[in-house]
């Protein structure tokens, strides 16, 4: 393996964007592909011409891939492959390179992510790839559920992969990721809490139907606006239109394109979804995902919280 800088490879080697008019309104339409685009590229005539494409399935239920997946798609397990349980962080550069190489992903490969639960975990994996500066990452709009609802082909056959070399690249946590220290220095600028309203007010510390995750306090980070992630999604899991998203984030929540924004949820997966919306669909310039999220903040000694529907005041003297 070789070490390289994290500068983007020549974009001319990448696959062209999905030309679907559904996406043309977004700031970065090339970050989305439709189920039809994926079908064309993995099953259709264009398949042979596009070898430098890897479809990755990233699910909350990590067994789901084995029950049937898009033909040619490879599984990525966010729990065992992207997390380092010892450092309680994402895997380091060598391990990241090993994992990607083992999936046949090179630095210039187009990687399309899709998954269950409206693409939460797909967006999360895409976000981690972004921290490592992988340039061409895309989400399949609507995710796994849409593919299946459309009656498209699935298979249990796991594709054979030719391992490739992925360069060892230092992760850049400064531009798309926020730590709790970053959040402490962020007060006064927009914070978005994407959890459910009951989690925001502090009536509950977890999603309805989900187990308690061991958070000691209920509430939100002071000054955070409540914009549940699901507001950005249609019933079928696809993203809402540019106009609808502008209405939600710009007009209702009052967040502008040039603002420095931090989004969080409970463990960073739902806020990856919102990060994707703000960053790529609305084209906001500086959006960071606080992946420590409520599980860290709500439990931390000497970190203030706000309870109830009011956003609360920024703590003094920070």
């Amino acid at each position, binding site marked *: 393996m070789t070490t390289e800088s994290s500068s983007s490879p020549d974009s001319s080697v990448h696959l062209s964007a999905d030309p679907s008019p559904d996406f043309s309104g977004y700031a970065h339409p090339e970050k989305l592909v439709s189920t039809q685009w994926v079908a064309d590229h993995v099953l259709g005539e264009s398949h042979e011409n596009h070898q430098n494409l890897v479809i990755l399935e990233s699910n*909350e*239920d*990590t*067994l*789901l891939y*084995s*029950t049937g997946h898009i033909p040619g798609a490879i599984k990525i397990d966010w*729990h*065992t492959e992207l997390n380092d349980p010892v450092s309680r962080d994402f895997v380091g550069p060598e391990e990241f390179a090993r994992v990607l190489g083992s999936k046949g992903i090179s630095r210039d490969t187009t990687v399309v992510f899709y998954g*269950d639960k409206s693409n939460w975990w797909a967006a999360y994996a895409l976000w981690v790839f972004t921290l490592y500066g992988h340039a061409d990452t895309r989400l399949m709009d609507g995710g796994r559920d849409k593919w299946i609802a459309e009656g498209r082909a699935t298979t249990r056959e796991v594709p054979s992969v030719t391992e490739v070399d992925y360069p060892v690249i230092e992760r850049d946590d400064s531009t798309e990721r926020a730590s709790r220290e970053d959040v402490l220095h962020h007060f006064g600028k927009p914070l978005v809490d994407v959890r459910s309203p009951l989690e925001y007010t502090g009536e509950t510390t977890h999603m309805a*139907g*989900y*187990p308690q*995750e061991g958070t000691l306090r209920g509430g939100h980070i002071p000054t955070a606006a409540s914009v549940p992630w699901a507001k950005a999604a249609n019933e079928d899991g696809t993203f809402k239109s540019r106009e609808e998203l502008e209405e939600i984030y710009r007009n209702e929540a009052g967040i502008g394109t040039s603002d420095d924004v931090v989004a969080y949820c409970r463990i960073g997966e739902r806020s990856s979804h919102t990060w994707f919306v703000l960053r790529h669909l609305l084209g906001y310039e500086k959006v960071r995902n606080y992946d420590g999220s409520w599980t860290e903040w709500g439990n931390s000694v000497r970190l203030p919280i706000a309870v109830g529907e009011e956003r609360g005041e920024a703590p003094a003297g920070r």
Partner: protein
Amino acid sequence: MTTTELPEKLHEIVEDFRAVPDPERLELLLEFSEELPALPERYAGHQDQMEQVIECQTPLFLAVELENAAPDAGPTAESIVRLFVSAPPEAPTSRGFASVLSQSLNGLPAAEVLAVPEDLSTRLGLQKALTPLRLRGMSAMLGRIKRNISDQLADQLAG
């Protein structure tokens, strides 16, 4: 590790899981998920008759019936446990857990089910392959089954 206090069928399942490396344990769980029997008619489409395991990440419902020694006798510690669980196909992990419990506990006397240790998911050796949240879902499923049985036995005593 000792598994001597586990019921025989459960002991065998635990041994099967422990005999294979981590990734294959997930495959084994997937096989179990495919073996979860369909609900009998009296429960199919009647989730209101069942108890929801809200600790699980997906809609999972269970019902526990106690088959008594004599038709006119009430439930006792010797009553035979009949377990019914439903979990959607898009939740294979939950289905897998449900199926392990269903295959290992069905047909046992109530007292034996109540004696199953709480750390079952740890014994299956899944703590590396699955998140703590999921393992807690399995513990919750077992906990609810046991509480359901205890409640039925207590009702009998009270009645």
